[in-house]
């Protein structure tokens, strides 16, 4: 068997780490009112999932997981560009990036 990280750090610890990061991101989404920070929290959650995929990919010795992570990154980049464009547009209209400024969307 070749030497690998999993000899010293078991897979469970990678799972727990990405779990913690995902939950921190979720708390950020629920807690913050600044739309930019909410966006960053979503990025954090996406990254936690990426980390998990790479960990499993390395664990199984199957590179498909890393190809998948590549596609997730592409979609995340597109999503951020569009999201920030929408955010700038919202800021122009309501002069605020507070999520409560968009309460009308409820109806």
């Amino acid at each position, binding site marked *: 068997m070749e030497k*690998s990280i999993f000899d010293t*750090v078991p897979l469970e610890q990678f799972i*727990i780490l990405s779990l913690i990061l995902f939950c921190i991101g979720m708390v950020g989404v629920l807690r*913050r009112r600044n739309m930019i920070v909410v966006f960053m929290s979503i990025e954090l959650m996406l990254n936690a999932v990426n980390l998990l995929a*790479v960990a499993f990919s390395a664990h199984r010795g199957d590179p498909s997981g890393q190809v998948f992570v590549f596609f997730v990154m592409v979609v995340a980049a597109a999503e951020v*560009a569009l999201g920030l464009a929408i955010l700038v547009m919202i800021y122009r209209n309501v002069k605020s*990036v507070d999520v409560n400024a968009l309460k009308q969307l409820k109806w």
Partner: protein
Amino acid sequence: MEQVIFYGLALIAIVGALVTIFARNAMYSVLALVVTFFAMAGLYLQLNAEFVAVVHIIVYAGAIMVLFLFVVMMLNLNSVSSIVSNNTSVKWIAGLFGLAMAGILGYGTYVTTLPARGVNAAENGTVKVLGKMLFNEYLLPFELTSVLLIATMVGVIVLTKKEE
């Protein structure tokens, strides 16, 4: 040694993530998130995923965070400091939901038997292996990403263009 590096990077990533969601100034949030991303790139390197690590640094730390920083500066949000929810019950509920989610996911991890370790090929994460996969099995999705990116680009330009 590997363990020490792993725990160090994990600690940096978690602290960076916490600073990201708790900092009052959006600028500090962006910078803390950059630190988190670099720590995660280190973790990818530990997992022998060189290609993903490099792409991660270029795309996230290089492009996405610069975009965030640019928007934060452009909107000059330092004057808008009412970014943390004033409603304390919302804070508590958010924390509660986070803990509940962690509990559920942790329990799921605990009861699941993980798959056995596969044959660990050290060159799994290199550009050579992933490039061959991208241009053989995943050729169609790879080409479709270019359509996605061009559509995004057009959409962003249309959205942010000032109306006459």
